[in-house]
């Protein structure tokens, strides 16, 4: 076996008795290639997943030994009004943010797809925010939202004679203000994906519809949108997951009172961060991550269910 290993495989070796040893040799290569990755996925992905479930049934402050307390963390969470506030916030980001960003992205992609003059340049303008660092841009937006004379938006409102808005200090305005930053940051990606989806629609469909006298609006409703369904579903799921996991913008725009004012902007991931790494309530934080996992799992399964006839 070892001697053969060193020998180059000659065409002659591919027939008869040598066949089995070649298969064994191939299998050795395969498992050799996979050995380190299997170790990695076991230790860095699967074990921590199980560990998170296990921890969610314990009470642990990092110092003492973890104590098994059954479902007490979950009972505590579901009885905690603060958790439900965070839960509502998280879904507010999702339910308002996803449709707004998708409608904007589709409209822009639809028209940008037809533009030829300076196409690459205009596309770059829309795409640029997507590749910037979220924490850096959060600070730029935070500056925009300051009261006049510091903040550009309020200075502008003042100049045209409107009342100023306490963007980040008001419990009504803070969440939409942060959400706008997140929509802005993700828009470029969605536009590019929509444009790729639009270009994948065969041109003959449009020609046939035009010959049949279908108008632009009819083409959009009867051809473009239905054929774009896989792209749209992908983007809905992608954007939903993004909003459900929102963190960078919220953390950076509310550093003086993370998730404030009065918890009105706090999403689930920020709550998890604080429970684990400010309060060191590891078991409770783990239970919160299990809730996040469950929500994300439902979103992914919904996608699979909607797209089931395509597989």
């Amino acid at each position, binding site marked *: 076996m070892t001697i053969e290993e060193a020998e180059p*495989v*000659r065409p002659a070796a591919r027939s008869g008795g040598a066949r089995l040893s070649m298969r064994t040799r*191939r299998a050795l*290569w395969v498992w050799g*290639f*996979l050995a*380190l*990755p*299997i170790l*990695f*996925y076991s230790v860095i*992905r*699967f074990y921590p*997943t199980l*560990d*998170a479930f296990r*921890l969610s049934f314990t009470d642990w402050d990092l110092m003492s030994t973890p104590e098994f307390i059954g479902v007490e963390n979950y009972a505590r969470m579901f009885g905690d009004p603060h958790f439900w506030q965070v839960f509502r916030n998280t879904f507010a980001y999702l339910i308002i943010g996803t449709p707004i960003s998708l409608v904007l992205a589709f409209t822009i992609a639809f*028209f*940008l797809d*037809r533009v030829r003059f300076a196409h690459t340049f*205009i*596309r770059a*303008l829309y795409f*640029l*925010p997507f*590749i*910037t*660092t*979220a*924490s*850096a*841009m959060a*600070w*730029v937006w935070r500056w*925009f939202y300051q009261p006049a004379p*510091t903040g550009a938006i309020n*200075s502008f409102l003042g100049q045209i004679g409107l009342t100023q808005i306490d963007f980040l200090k008001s419990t009504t305005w803070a969440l939409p203000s942060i959400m706008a930053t997140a929509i*802005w940051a993700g828009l470029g*990606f969605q536009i*590019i994906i929509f*444009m*790729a989806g639009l*270009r994948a629609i065969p*041109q*003959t469909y449009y020609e046939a519809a035009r010959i049949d006298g279908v108008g632009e609006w009819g083409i959009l409703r009867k051809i473009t949108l239905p054929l774009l369904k896989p792209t749209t579903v*992908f983007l809905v799921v992608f954007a939903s997951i993004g909003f459900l996991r929102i*963190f*960078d913008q919220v953390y*950076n725009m509310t*550093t003086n009172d993370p998730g404030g004012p009065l918890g009105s902007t706090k999403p689930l*991931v920020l709550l998890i*961060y604080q429970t*684990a790494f400010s309060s060191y309530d*590891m078991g409770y*934080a783990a239970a919160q*991550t*299990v809730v*996040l*996992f469950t929500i*994300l799992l439902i979103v992914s399964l919904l996608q699979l269910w909607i797209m089931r006839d395509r597989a």
Partner: protein
Amino acid sequence: MTAATATAREARPLPMARLRPGRIVTWTVLFIGGVLMVTPLLFMFSTSLKDAGQIYDLRLIPEDPTLANYFEVLGDGRFLRWFLNSSLVAIAVTLSNVFFDSLVGYTLAKFRFRGRQFVFLAILSTLMIPTEMLVIPWYLMSANFGWLDTYWGIMFPGMMTAFGTFLMKQFFETVPDDFLEAARIDGLNEFAIWWRVAMPLVTPALSALAIFTFLGNWTAFFWPLIVTTSSELYTLPIGLTSFAVEQAIRWEMIMTGAALATIPTLIVFLLLQRYIVRGVMLAGLKG
């Protein structure tokens, strides 16, 4: 479907070509929208060139532009350190992903062996697990092994990804078996076949994977925030946050810091725009 896709792209006429005024309006609106999209970036750069006395003057072109803020921010060396940390982390993780994701993707695409489907589904299933669920166990693991506040601690969770593996598997499936078989007959070993024959055939996918992994790790925030505690180990996004908190209301300094954190990604984008956009499309359609 794929053949139709290819032709649809080339043969697209201009549906609005007939309506000239309409086209001009569309273009103008899109252009204004695009300028609005980059307005935050323009204001950031503009303010970074103003001194403290000018920041309430919201004109885009500074009256008396100065690089003094940049000298002050770069002066104490922390930004340079964070920049190097981010580069080191992002490059190491990218190299690891390009190597391992494509090795695993290739193995799953081009070998038939018992357990193949199981390994594939196991790796794919990790896509369902959010990072946020893993950070607490990772943190405990890092504390046990002494990985907290180390480069390895920042890097280890991302050394391989299911997304990259899946992407590469899709592309290796398009490589004809005849090429690999020919190399086998020439006496190349399996590793050399992968590295010297198969890999050069999937360079578009490799560059997409590399760009994504690099940008993703360059801008990563959540895990580096948790695992690093000393300023010497901060990556650029974490360093910027700590810097901005410390500067409080010195917005010209904060904007300079934000600009310094943004400039590298802008340069990468300007140099690689074609590949980045193509990569996003590629990953979005395949993924």
